[in-house]
């Protein structure tokens, strides 16, 4: 049983023993969560179950086992699920858009399907979220003429429309340049003031800069949970650099300057390096196996 608790003012998202299988593969295995306001990053290698977990949290998939409470409601009931979805923003992995629409029309369409029927309010809100993601000057261009990063931001704006209390984002920074990533952080930080943001990423730097809490997943389970600083702290005294390969290291890789960085148990005489979130992540995923 995995237990993860993120304490904040009130629990917005709670799971108990949720499990999801696809045939013989257990994509999410007995996951317990309790998340409040703030930004939670889900890290893990490919195939760890991050996307499946996020799809469950976004009410797209129902767990095979376990219980789920989102915004105090049980999405297993169709009425409660609809109510949760009114207050939920979801960005799937690699979303596709209607390329003949403009960003404003796309976000407006999503707002209609979020049951916002006041057309004037909707237009204002769509324009505001497009401004927030830095597309204010492109909102009347056809989506097919926008770059991949801009299209990703249109999808993000669609998730943000209506000020959701729960935001579930599957790799939101994909295709964004460094400037856009920084802008994304501001947008998400603002959302996190009023609600819960859960995002998956492969980018540990993103997690360190943005998230108050990190979950590391491997093989469907949450193998580590805590703050980004604590994740880096896992590697305290267990990361070192040298010019040669270290057969006893759990993981080793070549760094830019040409030295080798290792995580594991350092040999006698090795001088420890300052640990990063990357080091902590590599260590906990290796130890989990």
């Amino acid at each position: 049983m995995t237990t993860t608790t993120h304490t904040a003012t009130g629990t917005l998202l709670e799971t108990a023993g949720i499990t999801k299988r696809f045939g013989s593969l257990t994509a999410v295995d007995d996951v317990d969560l309790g998340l409040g306001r703030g930004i939670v990053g889900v890290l893990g290698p490919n195939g760890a179950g991050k996307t499946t977990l996020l799809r469950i949290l976004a009410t797209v998939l129902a767990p095979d086992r376990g219980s789920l409470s989102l915004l105090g409601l049980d999405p297993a009931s169709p009425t409660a699920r609809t109510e949760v979805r009114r207050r939920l923003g979801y960005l799937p992995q690699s979303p596709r858009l209607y390329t003949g629409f403009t960003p404003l029309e796309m976000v407006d369409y999503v707002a209609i399907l979020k049951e916002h029927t006041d057309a004037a309010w909707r237009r204002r809100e769509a324009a505001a979220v497009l401004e927030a993601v830095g597309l204010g000057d492109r909102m009347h261009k056809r989506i097919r003429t926008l770059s991949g990063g801009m299209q990703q931001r249109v999808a993000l704006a669609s998730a943000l429309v209506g000020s959701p209390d729960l935001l579930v984002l599957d790799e939101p920074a994909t295709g964004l340049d460094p400037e856009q990533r920084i802008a994304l952080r501001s947008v998400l930080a603002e959302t996190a003031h009023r609600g819960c943001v859960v995002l998956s990423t492969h980018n540990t730097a993103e997690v360190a800069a943005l998230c108050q809490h990190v979950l590391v997943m491997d093989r469907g389970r949450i193998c580590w949970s805590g703050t980004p600083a604590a994740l880096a702290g896992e590697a305290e005294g267990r990361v070192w650099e040298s010019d040669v390969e270290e057969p006893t290291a759990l993981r080793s890789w070549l760094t830019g300057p040409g030295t080798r960085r290792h995580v594991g148990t350092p040999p006698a005489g090795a001088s420890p390096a300052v640990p990063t979130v990357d080091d902590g992540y590599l260590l906990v995923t290796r130890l989990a196996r």
Partner: protein
Amino acid sequence: MSSVLVQAALPTARATRWTPGAALAGLLVAATALTGYADRPADLVLAIAAAGLAATVVAGLQDPAAALLEALPVSVMRRRVLRLAVVGAPALAVWWLLDSLSTAQLSGPGPLLALTATGVAVAVWAPPRRAVLLGASTPVALFTLHQVVPSGTTSDVIAWWLTDPWWVLAAATLLCVAGRRR
């Protein structure tokens, strides 16, 4: 909810690919007019029309942005119904145009509706990744089987969409309702 669907109708129509359906409709109108001009029976053209239009309507369920819209309060079933209405209305209009141009015995929208409902039922119950492809192929497959299977019980069953379209429509609709949560 109805207000939401009314407001969503126009953008849904804009998000739909119309070119294949429009091209098919043009071909069918031309073929029906030619058979009428040549004083030839148009039953086969109308049967092809039923299959082709039904396949086009079911293909209209294909939503490129489906993943982005998965977690919205307007469920996938309601969005499918909206898409069917948006694409189905012009398909019915084309059908009536063909029916009025021809003197075929195959009159009334029964076969078109039966094939469409069967295709939708297949799309509802098929694995999500191939649902629309399988659903849209079903009307064409039923038409083709009807043409190639020799007379007998199997042929009679395959031809239900022509001989008993309203029963087929009812059964397929029930299957769609049963799978509405999928």
